[in-house]
């Protein structure tokens, strides 16, 4: 039977199932297939805080959403066009997000009385008309998988487990995905277990053939590759991109990388990733806590390494005292905060942007620290390099504010040529020719950075620490005038970085928009998508996104003042807005939602339109 192939320009698919159903893996594989096919894409995994909450319960539902298209897209999508629900819990947890007309593929095998009752379904939603708005495909995924694997010498549990591969095969057929990547992946994953490998491959193929043959699926879809700039691409998550950026920063600066870190969701994967690159001289130290993590990184920085520490909110606050020491000793240090929903433990697996003011002010005394934030998963790479540049050039800790959405979300990334990356080489201090005394707090007149004198260098022996230092000599000083000078010098050094960063670029295609939407960090995609909608509907709006939160680009004030209204959407209660208002006395309008989730493009489009209408 030859089936109809329908051309579409984009689709949003959400895989949902039990934590044990392998949905993250399924989504990942589908993403890789899609990436290698050449679509633009964006992903959003969503998993429970529990490792494996009880099977079949709502808290146990794990999902993975993928948006892909034949053109460039900016977000994982607001609402899925297709939901794959492996059990009643997955259906219940996700059905409210579906737009009318969406496709729902359900695993009917799991819709037993018990499973339904477990999540509070009084009646079987497949039996009544509660799903009448949707196109529902009923597939006995489990039993068909088991059937397809009858021949194999594996346990029943193992064959049931392969049902995610069946689902992946079916969806791969539906969207005409290339399959080599997945087959190769399975081969390496189950290299030691040939029987399991064969079974998984068979399940995948059975899913594919099922699509091809069953009447239920009359149409398959084609989403043409996107016309992306030429180059070699790979799909990348924010955490991987940050890890690579750090390794690149290390290589470009010639500073060996030392990571001191304590595991915490959603930052742990950076530790995991970096621990795999020892061959590039990367040292990873899993510390006893966050304080030791940053302490060790600072110790390594004193020794001439690129010291890095990675964490999330609850760990970030613990580093404040050591960060203060880094400010006082004026040593380079990278501090990566992958923000999650707070306060306190909050919702560890959910995203948020509420650590900005903490990054700015969360230390005793006047303790200025540069802050930068990536705007998309792949941008994490560039931001890590930029942070390395600032830290090593200005001899200062730098805070990078990533977030849970960027960390785990992914998108295609055009792999840069190493030769195109900036040269970050660093000059350590060397003994003065004339044998003069070494002055560890003599500042470079331009950058105001102090010399970085590394142990092992003869003649530069010196002592640093957290007590106020005398300008120049670095000796302990309690002099009132010196303290005032040093407080202002440290501030001036950080403020001066503004001269060394790009101006803010405002995207204002018509040139006469009256409203500017300004964001920072992980909201770039949703804001961009929202703005696009408004523009498509004929609205005029300018967009700009801040990468440097401290110091701000020099033209920021002028940019703000050249619009009638400035809208600042944030996943917090208005933290950037507060900084802008204070610095520029501009009455920016905050739009905030603190739901642990990225904004929806549609929602932002509405808000932007409203502001335009009000001008």
């Amino acid at each position, binding site marked *: 039977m030859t089936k109809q192939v329908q051309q579409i320009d984009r689709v949003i698919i959400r895989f949902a199932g039990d934590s044990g159903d392998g949905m993250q893996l399924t989504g990942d594989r589908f993403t890789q297939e899609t990436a290698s096919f050449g679509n633009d894409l964006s992903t959003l995994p969503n998993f429970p805080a529990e490792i494996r909450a009880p099977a079949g319960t709502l808290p146990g539902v794990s999902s993975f959403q993928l948006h892909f298209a034949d053109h460039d897209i900016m977000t994982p999508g607001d609402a899925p066009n297709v939901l794959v629900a492996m059990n009643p819990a997955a259906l219940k947890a996700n059905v409210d997000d579906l737009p009318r007309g969406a496709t729902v593929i359900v695993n009917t095998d799991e819709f037993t009385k018990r499973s339904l009752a477990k999540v509070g379904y009084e009646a079987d939603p497949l039996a009544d008309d509660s799903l009448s708005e949707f196109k529902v495909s009923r597939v006995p995924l489990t039993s068909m998988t088991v059937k397809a694997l009858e021949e194999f010498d594996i346990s029943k549990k193992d064959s049931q487990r392969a049902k995610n591969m069946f689902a992946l095969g079916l969806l791969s057929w539906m969207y005409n995905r290339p399959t080599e990547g997945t087959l190769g992946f399975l081969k390496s994953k189950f290299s030691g277990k040939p029987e399991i490998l064969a079974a998984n491959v068979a399940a995948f193929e059975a899913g594919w053939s099922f699509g091809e043959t069953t009447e239920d699926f009359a149409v398959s879809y084609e989403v043409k590759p996107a016309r992306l700039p030429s180059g070699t691409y790979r799909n990348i998550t924010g955490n991987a991109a940050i890890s690579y950026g750090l390794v690149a920063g290390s290589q470009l600066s010639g500073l060996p990388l030392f990571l001191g870190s304590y595991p915490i969701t959603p930052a742990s994967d950076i530790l995991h990733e970096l621990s795999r690159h020892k061959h590039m001289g990367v040292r990873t130290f899993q510390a006893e806590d966050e304080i030791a993590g940053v302490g060790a990184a600072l*110790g390594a920085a004193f020794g001439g390494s690129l010291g890095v520490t990675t964490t999330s909110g609850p760990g970030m606050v613990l580093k404040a005292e050591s960060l203060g020491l880094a400010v006082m000793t004026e040593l380079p240090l990278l501090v990566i905060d992958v923000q999650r929903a707070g306060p306190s433990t909050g919702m560890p697996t959910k995203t948020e942007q509420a650590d900005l003011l903490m990054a700015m002010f969360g230390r005793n005394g006047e303790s200025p620290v540069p802050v930068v934030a990536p705007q998309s998963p792949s941008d994490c790479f560039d931001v890590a390099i930029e942070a390395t540049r600032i830290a090593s050039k200005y001899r200062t800790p730098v805070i990078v504010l990533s977030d849970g959405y960027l960390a785990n979300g992914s998108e295609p990334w055009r792999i840069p040529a190493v030769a195109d990356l900036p040269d970050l080489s660093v000059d350590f201090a060397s003994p003065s020719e004339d044998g003069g005394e070494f002055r560890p707090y003599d500042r470079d007149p331009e950058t105001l950075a102090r010399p970085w004198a590394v142990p092992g260098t003869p003649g530069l022996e010196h002592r640093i620490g*957290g007590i106020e230092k005398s300008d120049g000599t670095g000796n302990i000083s309690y002099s009132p005038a010196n303290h005032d000078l040093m407080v202002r010098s440290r501030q001036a050094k950080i403020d001066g970085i503004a001269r060394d960063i790009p101006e803010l670029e405002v995207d204002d295609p018509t040139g006469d928009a009256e409203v500017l939407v300004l964001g920072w960090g992980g909201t770039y995609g949703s804001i961009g998508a929202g703005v696009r909608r408004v523009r498509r509907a004929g609205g005029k709006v300018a967009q700009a996104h801040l990468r440097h939160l401290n110091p701000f680009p020099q033209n920021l004030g002028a940019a703000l003042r050249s619009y009638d209204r400035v809208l600042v959407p944030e996943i917090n209660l208005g933290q950037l807005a507060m900084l802008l208002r204070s610095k520029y006395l501009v009455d920016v309008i905050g739009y905030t939602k603190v739901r642990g989730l990225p904004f929806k493009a549609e929602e932002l489009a509405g808000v932007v339109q409203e502001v335009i209408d009000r001008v």
Partner: protein
Amino acid sequence: MSESNGNGAGAGFKSLRLVPRTDTEYKMKDFKSDQEVRWCPGCGDYAILAAFQGFLPELGVPRENIVIVSGIGCSSRFPYYLSTYGMHSIHGRAPAIATGLAASRPDLSVWVITGDGDGLSIGGNHLIHALRRNVNINVLLFNNRIYGLTKGQYSPTSEAGKVTKSSPMGSLDTPFNPVSLALGAEAGFVARTVDSDRKHVTSVLRAAADHEGASFVEIYQNCPIFNDDAFEPLKDPGERDMRLLRMEHGEPLRVGGDRGVVQGDYGELQVADVAEVGEDALLRHDAHRADPGYAFALSRMDYPAFEHVPIGVFRDVDRPTYDGRMAEQLAQARTERGGQDELAALLSSGDTWTVD
């Protein structure tokens, strides 16, 4: 340590395997910085500083390859007074900072200076973790049994019932025994000495430097201002020989002239008259026993307070160091995966595709 010649190159301390040697014949004064020493008159820290400065030439390594990291406390001002590299860090965190430094720079001789508050109160966790990891650092804990810098509150080593500013009716805490704690934390090298006995301090510093991995040295230190004479029974010429148990590897454990250490029913160590039990019943000190139980038993001998106080090296047992193993893994990974254009290979690892 292979035959130390006391000074200059070739001293060959084990912890300095990877540290460059120097031919410079340093003198004590070469290790004095230009900073004025600022402790109270009579503070035990002066004596320790002098002993340390006097010992450093023995290391036989260039001055610039020595780093002193301290926390906060009177004791932690130590680095300022030494002409080496140094960091006077923040309260309790020196072991963590030193861990990063030592793990990334095997060519340095790293010393941590801490106090009973800095190292056992706020910094207790970093200390015990550094010890179990066996990072190649030497930790000198100046135990004056008081918080000196903050003007005299009881510390985790102050005796129970101690009346201080913050405990007007007496402290409620049972103190730590730093040696027991270190042993419970898997320390490979544990020693104790007394500020006023320069020769002994020096011998213990020498042994610590000769241990590859984390060395922990408790130094009894007098604070004449807030806890004067805390160790008087161990210093008083009339008394000290009745109390001090000088441990020497391979030698019988003796206290004073006529008493020695024997083992009790459950492994505890007791002091007995040699005349009664006979010379042969005395335990011969063995600092190299793999099992820390014996060292632990020794550490309990000072109960009740200062009855018998072992000084010297309780335990000196080798095991691979954290930094050594880290370096090995890096080398191994490089061997296994070397030879490519590494950064470019990393960036394009995984599934890639090309758009023309």
